[in-house]
């Protein structure tokens, strides 16, 4: 047994599912996500994506940063931290949220799991322990990062409910979107939340690391008839753009990492106005956001349906007068929508649904570069929102 003091010898850790993800990773494609190594793709990005959209796919989310927040002031602490009213997230429910710095600029987004009385889990893309601890001044609250203590996996796609049914998990019949349920997995508690990052019917499963492999095996055994496949980060990225979800570091710069003050975004500028509640008690950034509401935001986030079939990667966005008004942050040729879609940040004076915008797309065919100016239509809904996403009980496909 290696001494705990030698922890530094392993620079990048394995997730609790590593024996299984490693065995499944036929392409041997990995990248680093926080402290862990995870799969970019297992066998074929297109097929993994196809499994996700037509059957179901499994994605290892263990490296996601998880914080446990508990104690008598857990609720007031979270309410001061995030912009939405956490008291409306009742026990057994999950809520999407963002939190801001003093200037009302978004530091990160994440999900709050209301696990029990005065007991919450905050999941985020970035590490937030420092900010959480600094925000805890004056609150009777315990904060712990518990990323390594929980193995988590996302099971997403139209047949995901059927797989869980086949595993004998009956509580999913009544499990509504953004709800949590705990069941027994061979003597260990298995927490199931109807959440995900794909915009489709799907679940996230949370278990002690000791039971991770068992969970993986059970899923693939039950899912064999339902087309279950492992899925890497590339396929997930396609799904999240189709769902219109934003990502820290891609669609917005976490405020605590910004050097240039105009590079950050407020919740208003990320189309997250619905997450800002001025009627609750004070939260960090409140005054700045109130001021911004009066003065008006500088930018807005738009979803674009781009003409043609070329992904508008990193494209400048122009208005009708050929003036640059923004840029694409995420883009994709969407196989489901059969369209080129994009998320873009544009000046607030542009980008209302009646506006025509233009994307300047550079692309190459056999090393020859060409440029296309593609007309963009501003879409008000997510690109891909199947009705099953919200149905309870979930359909048996």
């Amino acid at each position, binding site marked *: 047994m290696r001494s705990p003091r030698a922890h530094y010898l392993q620079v990048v850790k394995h997730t609790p599912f590593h024996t299984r993800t490693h065995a499944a990773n036929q392409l041997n494609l990995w990248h680093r996500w926080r402290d862990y190594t995870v799969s970019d793709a297992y066998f074929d990005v297109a097929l993994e994506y196809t499994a996700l959209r037509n059957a179901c796919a499994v994605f290892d989310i263990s490296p996601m940063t998880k914080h446990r927040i508990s104690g008598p002031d857990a609720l007031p602490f979270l309410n001061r931290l995030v912009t939405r009213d956490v008291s409306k997230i009742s026990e057994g429910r999950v809520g999407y949220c963002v939190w801001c*710095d003093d200037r009302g600029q978004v530091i990160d987004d994440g999900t709050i799991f209301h696990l029990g009385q005065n007991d919450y889990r905050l999941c985020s893309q970035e590490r937030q322990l420092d900010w959480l601890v*600094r925000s805890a*001044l004056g*609150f009777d609250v315990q904060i712990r990062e518990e990323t390594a203590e929980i193995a988590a996996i996302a099971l997403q796609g139209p047949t995901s409910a059927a797989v869980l049914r086949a595993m004998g998990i009956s509580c999913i019949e009544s499990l509504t979107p953004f709800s949590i349920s705990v069941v027994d997995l061979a003597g260990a508690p298995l927490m199931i939340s109807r959440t995900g990052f794909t915009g489709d019917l799907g679940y996230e499963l949370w278990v002690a690391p000791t039971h991770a492999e068992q969970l993986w095996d059970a899923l693939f055994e039950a899912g064999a008839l339902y087309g279950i496949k492992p899925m890497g980060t590339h396929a997930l990225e396609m799904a999240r753009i189709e769902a219109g979800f934003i990502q820290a570091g891609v669609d917005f710069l976490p405020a605590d990492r910004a050097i240039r003050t105009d590079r950050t975004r407020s919740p208003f500028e990320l189309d997250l106005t619905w997450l800002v509640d001025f009627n609750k*008690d004070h939260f*960090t950034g*409140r*005054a700045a956001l109130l001021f911004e509401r009066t003065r008006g935001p500088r930018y807005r986030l738009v979803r674009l349906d781009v003409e043609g079939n070329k992904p508008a990667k990193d494209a400048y966005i122009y208005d009708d007068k050929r003036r640059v008004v923004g840029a694409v942050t995420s883009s994709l040729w969407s196989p489901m929508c059969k369209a080129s879609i994009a998320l873009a940040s544009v000046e607030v004076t542009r980008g209302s649904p009646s506006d025509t915008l233009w994307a300047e797309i550079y692309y190459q065919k056999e090393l020859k570069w060409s440029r296309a100016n593609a007309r963009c239509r501003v879409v008000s809904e997510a690109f891909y929102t199947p009705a099953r996403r919200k149905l309870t009980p979930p359909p048996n496909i």
Partner: protein
Amino acid sequence: MIKQKPTVVIGAGHNGLVAAAYLARAGQAVLVLEAGAHVGGAAATHEFFKGFRVSSVSHLTSLLDPVVHNDLSLARHGLVFAKTHVKSVALAVDQEALVFEGAQLLAGTLSELDRAAFAPFVKRMQRFASVLGRQHGRVPPRLQWDRLIDAWPAARFGLDVRRLGREDMREFLRVITMAIQDVLDEEFSSDHLKGALAMDAVLGTKLGPRSGNTVFSYLHRHSGQGHLGVALPQGGMGAVSQSLAAAARDAGAEIRLNSKVTSLEVSAGAVAAVLLESGERVEASTVLSSLDPKTTLLALLGARHLDTELAQRVHHFRSIGTAAKVHIALSGLPQFRGVQPEHVGERLLICPSAEYADEAFNAAKYQRYSEQPLMELSVPTVYDATLAPPGQHVLSAIVQYAPYDLKGGWEQARAPFEALVMQVLERYAPGIGKLVLATELLTPVDLERQFGMTGGHWHHGELSMDQALMLRPVHGIAQYQMPVQGLFLCGAGAHPGGGVMGSAGRNAAAVVLKRPS
């Protein structure tokens, strides 16, 4: 009884009273809520032994805002100075004391060079200090502005520096962040003189003469805009507060004693009420707190009503007091070595060299008290007969360094520390021990308990460049208006800081009156 919703001032310290008086004069219904049984806060006089009274904390004024003095007619409200232009007398065990007042060197043995350098040095420092002094009555500039007009306060400060003239400006910018010792070493060779001047730079701070920023603290001490010099209020520092209270009451303010505020009630980002220890709730939409920033924002208001980064900045506002107060009732007038009898009532300094002060400071860095402390002594009874029975005297000593965060705590250290103080005094005033009728020691912990000043810090928080002007108490809230609407800071924790000035109270009141209703 006040009928309309009053403007509440928390704390009847001198700044609270100044703010109350200005607001009441402008026609506001003002209610001052004071936790203690007397007005004055730390600017008070108390009886520490039967028949013997003394200034509780600060015992000399040099910074009292002349505009306040004038506007509030403090003389008419009973403020009399027993002595103005108090001289500084630097004691030495083995030689004649150095006596000076302003740029005038009155007695003492110095080399010709030192003697020649003294007046130009003091006058130059006075010119620099007056740049700071000119800022006292102004709301500090903002570091960020949307309209060009908001840049004016910052520009005006720059202009004040520029108006020093090229040579002075260059020198001002060179020395402003320096350690006083380095500047003194450039000018003088006499340890005795350097010790006396260094004392003004470190008194009331957690800094030593070799700490950066001590030129700034020296300048602050000399930034008073009045023409009384160092002065001794008749009846002790409490007399200043009494006259301010009289001025406030005269203008219509109500002062309620024994009314401790325990928290502020906030609704929709604005102050709604103050809650008292008695359980009483006083509705108010405008509240000025003369308490220190940490008490005001973290204890009364609560960090949860502030943004995270701001709450952290307030939390880290440095406020560890290092100055203790020792009061001694004497059966007769003590004699000090090398001091002419006519100088016993002046400001007596025990700091034989800057090195002495620096070594004294070393202890404080490591949470110990100085074995060889600095002292500023005043025997006010020489000029003020109201403080002690006839023929008897009071000695008031500021003793440094006696850090708030003493290792092992102050309880078991009290007796040895008092003995140490007496031992040092005996060295400079042989036979003083035989005159002692009673003594009282107020450590920073006592000062915190009695006057509610966090860390027992006389200035409500260290007064150095990183906590001064537009950075006082911390950046973002340096213009008296706190982030919660209707809440204002009006004490020494706000610009221009500590010393019995009243400028913070005056400026805060002006901000309150100027805001759009």
